[in-house]
């Protein structure tokens, strides 16, 4: 008899727990939907909400929308679509790079980055013990088969029709899967409050420039997508004093040098100079091409931060 009651109580307990958990799951699932529907039906009612900076505000219920299906701002919408009919490519001529670092400065200025944060970084390279060292600017490669967008759990990073890979910082949850997935280490994470956060706090978020930068989200090179909309070359390309960068539309088979503004055939430039891409064995199909550091315009003097180089 005693055994029976204990058995009974366990069963009852399990039963109740099972029902509660199951019901809670179903109810919470429907409650969001219900709340959204209810909000649409009852006009004029206000609710108290806590904002991000800890302030209590009263908002009309009709203003509330579920986060996932809510209307994106116009900027985000067109930023996701990209520029129709374009296919942007960059060519970096390593024989002309002397580590002037003007590209980095212009980029950090455009995207509101601190000096230690890089969307583009000039690296000192030496491929093997007896090979000649050289400088190599390394932006995001804007791959045609990007490993980073595959791993994003929230659709925050994506590829557009013009080939550019972007991040929506309003969506990014800061999981950093994409940083781990990128073989080129092109992405950075905003660990702290970004540069001039106070100054730019009222600025509308521009998905095509990643500004204002947001703490706890990922940021990376965007080929200055906001400038491309105005038919301007990316910041790094137009700020280079040594003619390192070419940028253009592959559909037109033409790239323009940012320093000399000379326009040349993309296919010819790559063919004549034996252009290559980084880590082709990974099958990422980068959109950034390199011309080998042959017949250099400057002697390599081996010091990344040499005063003499910095102009």
């Amino acid at each position, binding site marked *: 008899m005693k055994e029976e009651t204990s058995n009974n109580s366990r*069963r*009852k307990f*399990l*039963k109740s727990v*099972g*029902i509660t958990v*199951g019901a809670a799951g179903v109810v919470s699932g429907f409650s969001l939907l219900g709340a959204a529907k209810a909000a649409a039906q009852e006009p004029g009612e206000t609710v108290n909400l806590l904002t991000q900076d800890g302030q209590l505000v009263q908002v009309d219920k009709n203003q509330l929308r579920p986060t996932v299906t809510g209307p994106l701002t116009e900027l985000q919408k067109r930023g996701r679509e990209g520029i*129709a*009919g*374009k*296919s942007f490519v960059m060519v970096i001529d390593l*024989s*002309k790079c*002397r580590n002037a670092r003007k590209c980095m400065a212009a980029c950090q200025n455009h995207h509101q980055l601190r000096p230690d944060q890089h969307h583009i970084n000039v690296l000192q390279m030496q491929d093997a013990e007896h090979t000649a060292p050289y400088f190599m600017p390394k932006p995001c490669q804007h791959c*045609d*088969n*990007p*490993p980073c*967008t*595959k791993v*994003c759990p929230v*659709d925050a990073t*994506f*590829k*557009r*029709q013009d*080939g550019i890979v972007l991040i929506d910082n309003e969506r990014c949850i800061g999981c950093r899967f994409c940083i781990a997935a990128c073989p080129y280490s092109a992405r950075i994470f905003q660990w702290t409050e970004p540069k001039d956060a106070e100054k730019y706090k009222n600025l509308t978020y521009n998905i095509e420039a990643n500004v204002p930068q947001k703490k706890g989200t990922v940021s990376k090179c965007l080929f200055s997508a906001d400038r491309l909309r105005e*038919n301007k*070359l990316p910041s790094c390309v137009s700020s280079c*004093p*040594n*003619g390192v960068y070419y*940028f*253009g*539309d592959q*559909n*037109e*088979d*033409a*790239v*323009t040098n940012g*320093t*000399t*503004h*000379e*326009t*040349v*055939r993309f296919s010819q430039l790559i063919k004549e100079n034996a252009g290559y891409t980084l880590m082709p064995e990974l099958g990422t199909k980068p959109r950034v091409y390199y011309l080998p550091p042959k*017949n*250099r*315009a*400057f*002697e390599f003097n081996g010091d990344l931060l040499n005063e*003499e180089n910095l*102009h």
Partner: protein
Amino acid sequence: MKNAIKIIASLFLLFVFTASVVNAQKWQAPVLSKKKQNPYEASTRNISSGKKIYNINCKSCHGDATMGNMLPLQPVAPSDLGSQAFLIQTDGEIYYKVNKGNGAMPTFEKTLSDEDKWMVITYLRSFDQNKKESKKIVEVKNPEVTDVKLLLDINNENKRILANLTGVTAKGDRVALQGIELSVKVKRNFGYLDISGDDAYTNEKGEVNVQFPEDLPGDREGHVNLLVKVTDDAYYGEVIVDRIASLGIPTNPVNPLDERAMWGTRANAPIWIIFSYVGGVICIWGVIFLVLFQLIQLPKLAKNKE
């Protein structure tokens, strides 16, 4: 008083000394290299092609010759290559410096051909007021004309562009202008692609015949924006003709988002991934609900047994 003289004397010495140090750092070409002569004559063609090369390779730092609009670099700003102070050097000296480079100035030993370098020097020498080294040679003398017209005849079959440059003389005759360089360009997204080739000078009929590249893409219909102009505005002011021609290869831009791919966002995910994911979710939830259902059934089973 004696002290003051001493101080002044030492200051003077110091000044002389520093001046000599600064002088020693000045960029000097070796004596031998100074004697090198420019093998090319100062013809209008050479000057014009030198200007082109200058605009591409030198202008971004040195600015326009004689304009003094060079980049304000530190510690040494690039010199104005059209200034008389610069042109005091011999052709050989300039050639040496272009080849070797110094500080922020890159070496052009391998990036420019010898001919290109001499063309640039010919162009720069055209600003020399002393003209010791060479004189400008004009091969063709065109009459004074007004109402300069540039006509285009585009042959779609063999993709040739025929430009004709004419002007009206004082007598009222329309005559061909000879030996004038034309630039034929195709508009691209960030600039103009020059397709005029090496020898785009008008012949005795005032004509230039340019072959459009066989494989240059146009838009969907193959249209390209052509721009033909007289290269040097100094002759007749700005003479430009703008034309849309269907000379390019029709190109349909490929939208990478049209096909489903692994890298696509949710909307563009491959069908098999959507199916296997949704299937997996349904299976897992199904098992959970099955277990819950069985748990509910337990008391009933117990009662039936009793």
